[in-house]
């Protein structure tokens, strides 16, 4: 049995197209994680702190992607790309993934930010840090566990995503889930199980890290808390 299933892994790594797909998916997830986490964290900070009149509007704009079915997101992304004449490729997939990761990051980071208060930042400014200095030296380090957890969550979501990728990918190198889709539709193939297991390992490692890392920062709360704080409100 073992020998048999190992054979499919071997097949997987010998198939250069599949290998390219794996690397494409990892690349997409990594870029999405970085850009999405930066933008989502900025949005969380702005939403909690800004008194701008249109800030509630931005809040709604942030929440809508969480409730819109993915197929709608996929279609709108496809339309905008064809409208502006962008050739579909893994970069259009990245753009679509970032758009949807922003909201997840914001929800997770905002939950922690709301519980932090402003006094430590004021203390930093009182001690001579400029406003940006207080953000960099006090606010961001305080948010760090939530930011890391949100980033890894984003990585897992992007790596695992099928629908958005399906609508926005080009023909040349396709993300792994899209490749699985074509494989399934062409007929049964044991390679799929090998790919599935491999993907699961990647996703679970990302989520496992998301749960563990806040602990490594020496905080008392666990990652489960950081991630479910968003859920619990």
């Amino acid at each position: 049995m073992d020998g048999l299933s190992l054979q499919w892994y071997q097949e997987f790594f010998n198939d250069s197209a599949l290998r390219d797909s794996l690397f494409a998916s990892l690349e997409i997830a990594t870029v999405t994680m970085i850009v999405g986490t930066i933008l989502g964290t900025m949005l969380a900070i702005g939403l909690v702190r800004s008194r701008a009149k249109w800030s509630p509007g931005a809040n709604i704009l942030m929440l809508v992607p969480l409730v819109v079915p993915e197929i709608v997101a996929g279609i709108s992304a496809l339309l905008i790309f064809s409208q502006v004449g962008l050739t579909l490729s893994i970069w259009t997939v990245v753009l679509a993934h970032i758009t949807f990761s922003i909201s997840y990051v914001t929800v997770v980071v905002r939950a922690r930010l709301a519980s932090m208060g402003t006094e430590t930042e004021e203390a930093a400014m009182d001690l001579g840090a400029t406003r940006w200095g207080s953000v960099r030296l006090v606010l961001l380090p305080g948010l760090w566990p939530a930011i890391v957890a949100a980033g890894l969550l984003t990585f897992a979501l992007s790596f695992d995503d099928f629908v958005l990728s399906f609508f926005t990918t080009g023909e040349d190198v396709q993300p792994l889930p899209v490749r699985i889709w074509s494989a399934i539709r062409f007929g049964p193939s044991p390679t799929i199980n090998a790919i599935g297991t491999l993907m699961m390992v990647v996703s679970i490692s990302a989520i496992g890290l998301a749960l563990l890392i806040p602990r490594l920062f020496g905080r008392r709360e666990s990652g489960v808390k950081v991630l479910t704080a968003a859920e619990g409100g």
Partner: protein
Amino acid sequence: MSEAIRLEDVSKSFGEYEAVKDVSLTIEKGEFFSLLGPSGCGKTTTLRMLAGFEIPTEGRILLEGEPVEDVPPYERNVNMVFQSYALFEHLDVADNVAFGLKRKKVAKDEIRKRVEESLELVSLADRAKSHTNELSGGEKQRVALARALVNEPAVLLLDEPLGALDLKLRRQMQVELKQIQREVGITFVYVTHDQEEALAMSDRIAVMSDGEVVQCGVPEEVYEHPAEAFVAGFIGVSNLMEGIVQGKDKVKLASGQSVKAPLPEGCDKGEKVQLSVRPEKITLDDFERGMVTLEGTVAERVYQGVNTQVTISLGDGASVVALEQQTYRASADDRWEPGAKVKLGWHPDHCLVLR
């Protein structure tokens, strides 16, 4: 002495609500100055304007003679100790204390030296490498203090710094804070709603009510000569008796008796006033010449250890509280039983007429 801070007609509004109204104060260099008042009276808001976190709606703030209303907090030579400590959780004790010096780009060796000194000052030298969440409340308070003092600010602002500590630790920290202040000689502006704390520690006190400074003076003055009924009632316990001005230095109490009392300038006959007498200034059944004396009935007696508190009804619903020291005279417990007639008296000098 020269002045450290001057507030000129400073007001602060949050939308419609005026939290601080027309406050003018001068605080001298090296002074331990307290802002005292009930919750919500605008103490924190005043302090935050000094620190630069709030910009006054009106008025001027001068720090060592320079106007600073529009100077951001990070460019003001004042530092603050927050009620919640506001320590940086991701840094250890030494790095917390070094934070301000690093922002000023002080040389490394110098930083190390000064951090050591100020941790020494607050007796925390051995906790330099501790994580902030391993510290007790009192220790956190000391770190917050060291973190501010190490910068040698012109003025140190403290917002109810002992508010979160238990009573015993509070008393101990009061003494320590006062010692530290004498040692470093920095001007302290201290916010508290605890009148005993303010009286014990301050060189001068400003009593605030509803956004206004109602009296400013040395502790004795604020305690002995409250300018208003509010101050008399807020600082210490005071007997307030209603009365009507009868003539020169004569007041007729609502309970019927006429007493001698020093009237303030410009009191007219027939004007309604309040007489204020501290409980500890009232003596029972034992008088000296020149005292005001009244008769009453003992309503209640509470033994308090050092003192005995006697409540005396003057008739017509009016009553006063007297505190009798446990001297040889007061030790017999058959005296001042409830229902007994009693004579009470006080020196006219110890009685204050409030309008």
